[in-house]
């Protein structure tokens, strides 16, 4: 009987198995059965401070041919120094190296100052650039610099000044170069045609790109924003005023310097030439602007700086701006603890050169536990410095008023960041044991968010694509057991909340 039952059961089981009607079980092969490759990469020396190793960038240098018909490019590997951006190194290389035969050389032209902020570059050349150069040669020099810099990632516009003064070509502002110039001769011919056209009454305006400087919401910086404007022969200044009145559009941490919607100018802007030969733009604002300043909390230096930088960056051969509010000339302003006095009411570009800032993107956790990018105004140097950026990240996350935070309970101190070493486009980040200890209790989600807050923030820099973590100079497996730290970590754009990058405040 039992044998019979067993036989039936066996036959039916076999039939069911053949039909695939039974769960055959699953082949299990756990990860533990497969050996994972291990990294033995350890830094030779303790990483302290901010250092760079072997930072070579491939850049194409543009040299204009002597006849101006074309450009010759030379591919160069440029080594950037600490605190130096690739565009700056590129301009240095372009001006210092002779280039191939048959091209124009810059001669003794030097770089007086270099602004790299918000994706725009302003190169301030020495007066040598203007000496003994024809308009075409000058245009060729500017186009060489512009073409070279526009070939570098992250650069969207290039403005060239000579001795703090914007140059003209055929009596028209050259503005900010945003596209590569293929032929100097063709570009010059276009300037000539535009000059002839604009001189006629009722002619259509010409388009130019200009840098419009706005104060930032933290009251520390003036940041440039690239703007396309339309100008006629006598509306250069008013077009810029209108752009300022329109307020910032791309930089979220910037605020308007003059209000929109009201007629502010009492008189038509006038450029006069002083006895010294300097060209000065006079702007006479109504009392409305004074009221706006009082209402918005904007300081006078921000208004003055915004106007001076914007006007001198675009208006041809403009040395200074004279600002009057309700017929009261602005002759001084407070900038922190300092007082800036404007001699003869002349507000110059150099008064605010060290107030030109840039923006950096910090990644932090918002109230809904999402990683969110915020745009913060920082100095141009900080915008290029991984260490400064992380310090700003820690500082901002630790601020009590901040709505954004890092997923770590304790406040991270700048001392927890022992050093950052940039090797190629990898930032080797050396963090303290205290940092490691604080991270031990993080949840997997918290660990992930912390790591990627740091990585995404650092990788918002043009020069950094990945981050390698070290704890007290040694490679650690993980911070809290989830993210493997013995390999480089690339940014994770997918976990950033989809909304646009926010203003930090």
């Amino acid at each position, binding site marked *: 009987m039992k044998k019979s039952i067993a036989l*039936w059961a066996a*036959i*039916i089981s*076999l*039939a*069911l*198995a*053949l*039909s*695939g*009607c*039974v*769960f*055959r*079980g*699953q*082949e*299990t*092969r*756990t*990860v533990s059965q*497969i050996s*994972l*490759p*291990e*990294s033995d990469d350890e830094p030779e020396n303790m990483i302290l401070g901010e250092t760079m190793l072997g930072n070579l960038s491939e850049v194409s240098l543009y040299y204009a041919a002597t006849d101006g018909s074309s450009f010759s490019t030379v591919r160069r590997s440029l080594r950037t120094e600490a605190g130096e951006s690739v565009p700056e190194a590129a301009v240095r290389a372009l001006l210092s190296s002779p280039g191939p035969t048959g091209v124009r050389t810059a001669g003794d032209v030097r770089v007086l100052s270099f602004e790299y902020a918000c994706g725009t570059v302003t190169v301030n050349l020495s007066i040598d650039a203007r000496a003994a150069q024809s308009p075409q040669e000058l245009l060729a020099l500017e186009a060489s610099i512009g073409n070279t810099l526009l070939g570098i990632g992250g650069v969207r516009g290039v403005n060239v000044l000579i001795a703090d003064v914007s140059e003209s070509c055929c009596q028209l502002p050259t503005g900010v170069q945003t596209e590569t110039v293929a032929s100097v001769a063709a570009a010059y011919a276009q300037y000539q045609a535009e000059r002839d056209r604009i001189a006629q009454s009722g002619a259509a305006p010409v388009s130019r790109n200009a840098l419009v400087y706005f104060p930032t919401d933290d009251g520390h910086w003036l940041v440039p924003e690239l703007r396309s404007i339309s100008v006629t022969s006598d509306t250069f200044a008013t077009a810029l005023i209108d752009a300022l009145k329109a307020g910032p559009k791309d930089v979220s941490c910037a605020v308007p310097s003059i209000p929109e919607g009201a007629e502010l100018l009492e008189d038509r802007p006038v450029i006069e030439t002083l006895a010294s030969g300097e060209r000065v733009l006079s702007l006479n604002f109504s009392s409305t602007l004074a009221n706006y300043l009082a209402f918005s909390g904007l300081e006078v230096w921000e208004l003055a700086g915004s106007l001076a930088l914007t006007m001198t960056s675009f208006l041809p051969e403009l040395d200074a701006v004279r600002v009057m509010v309700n017929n009261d000339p602005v002759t001084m302003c407070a900038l922190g603890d300092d007082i800036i006095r404007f001699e003869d009411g002349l507000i110059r570009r150099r008064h605010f050169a060290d107030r030109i800032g840039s923006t950096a993107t910090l990644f932090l956790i918002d109230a809904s536990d999402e990683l969110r990018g915020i745009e913060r105004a920082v100095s141009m140097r900080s915008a290029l410095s991984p260490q400064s950026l992380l310090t700003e990240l820690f500082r901002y996350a630790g601020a009590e008023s901040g709505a954004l935070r890092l997923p770590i309970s304790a406040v991270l101190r700048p001392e927890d960041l022992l050093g950052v070493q940039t090797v190629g*486009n*990898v930032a080797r980040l050396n963090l303290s044991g205290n940092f490691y200890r604080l991270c031990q209790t993080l949840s997997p989600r918290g660990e*992930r968010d912390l*790591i*990627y807050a740091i990585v995404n923030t650092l*990788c918002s820099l043009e020069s950094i*694509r*990945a981050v390698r973590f070290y704890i007290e100079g040694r490679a650690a497996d993980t911070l809290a057991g*989830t*993210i*493997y730290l*013995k*390999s*480089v*970590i*690339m*940014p*994770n*754009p*997918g*976990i950033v909340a989809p909304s646009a990058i926010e203003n930090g405040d």
Partner: protein
Amino acid sequence: MAIISLTRIKAFIHSIRWKITIAYLLIIVVAFGAIAFSLIQLVGEYLFTQRSRDDQRIAEGLAEEFGGYLVAFDAQSMYDAALETASAEQSRVLVLDRLCVVQVDTASEMNGRRFITAEIDNVLKGADSDYGFYDAGDTGAYWLRAALNAFSGVDAMTGVYACPIYSQDALSGVLVYISQVQEIYESLRDIQLKILSWMALVAIAVLLVNALVLRTITRPIGELNEGISRMSRGDLSARVVPRGNNEFAGLARAFNSMSERLEQLDNSRSQFVSNASHELKTPLSTIKILIESLMYQEPLDPGMAKEFLTDVDKEIDRLNRIVSDLLTLVNIDNGTKLNLAELDIGALLQEQVKRLLPLARENGIELDCAAKDRLEVTGDALKLQQVVYNIIDNAIKYTPRGGEVHCTLSRAARKAVIRVSDTGVGIPQDDLPHIFDRFYRVDKARSRDTGGTGLGLSIVKQFVVLHGGTIEAKSAPGKGSTFIIELPLSNKKQEN
């Protein structure tokens, strides 16, 4: 109660019905199993192969594109390209570096974590590519390889395709392309379920038909079994109802015929014993009365004593005849042997008429015989003599004085026909079918008076039947009777 149920269950398990049912079920399951296995294998192999080829094409295209990106740590470009593909294909793309750290994940869940599967391991060890299927389940983990023909338990069947990412001919990472193949798996499972459903439906249909067929087979067997059981218990009245016109109906009819015959035999036996007892007891009682009368007769009258003893003698003779007839019947029943010889049946008839002629005269009855033809039969002379004698003797006994008894012999086809007709009292129609039964008497008092035992006609019939012949009687009350005996002629050529 439980014991009864268990007994019934055991009886059912041992029944033909159960075994045939199981056999049918087994045939269905094996047949459908083989079909399902072949179908699932073929369809599954085709669908999964197609999917793996599609995945391979996409993954290898991405891997080629990502070679430069990975070495330049361009996560954004890889993410954008991977996301575009993943969105279009509803799949998931992972980019792993050589340490198996996920650098790009279109789902942005595994970034920074190490991820390894057998396929990735194989690629890191030099394989061109590898493909595997996993049950990602609710957790999305890819550590549980799934059997493609698993019938259940797979929540998220996922295909994992791994291929190397080369940068300047050096392995720089692994691209993992994860596609959902649950819909393929569900399709296969649907096919399996449909086959199972069909199997269940067919099984139910077959079982129903089987039950009906088995009922037509086993019900007559059961009824027959019940009838036999009743018969074995002594109930010879058991009958079964023949249903239809099949073998079982024939068997039922045969059984009914057999049981009817047995019942008749049993009734005959009982009747016979009863009759025999009665027939034997009657002379014995008479003898006992006569002897007791003699014993208590004081003084004993010699004349009366002689008379009584004469009566006792007669009763003893009667007893003797009854016993002789009974022995004859017993011999017949036991298969008595015939001393066969070629007989002139006409001569035999005339001889017996001649023997009984004095008795006929004594009773005032005219007896004649007409046997013109010479007819020969093969038979036992003594027994056929007894047949003819008994019939003519009966005719004489039941024909009143002045009556006639005619005997004729004729030929009808291959038979010799003896007719014995009388002008006697005749036989009622109700008694006519029973006159050949043992101890059956039409007029019981008269029969005894004539010295009959009630066995004569029965013996006659048995002898005739033993010779392959027939006997029948035709009669009407008051109009006499005719007994017709037909005996087969011998094979020897008969003379006219």
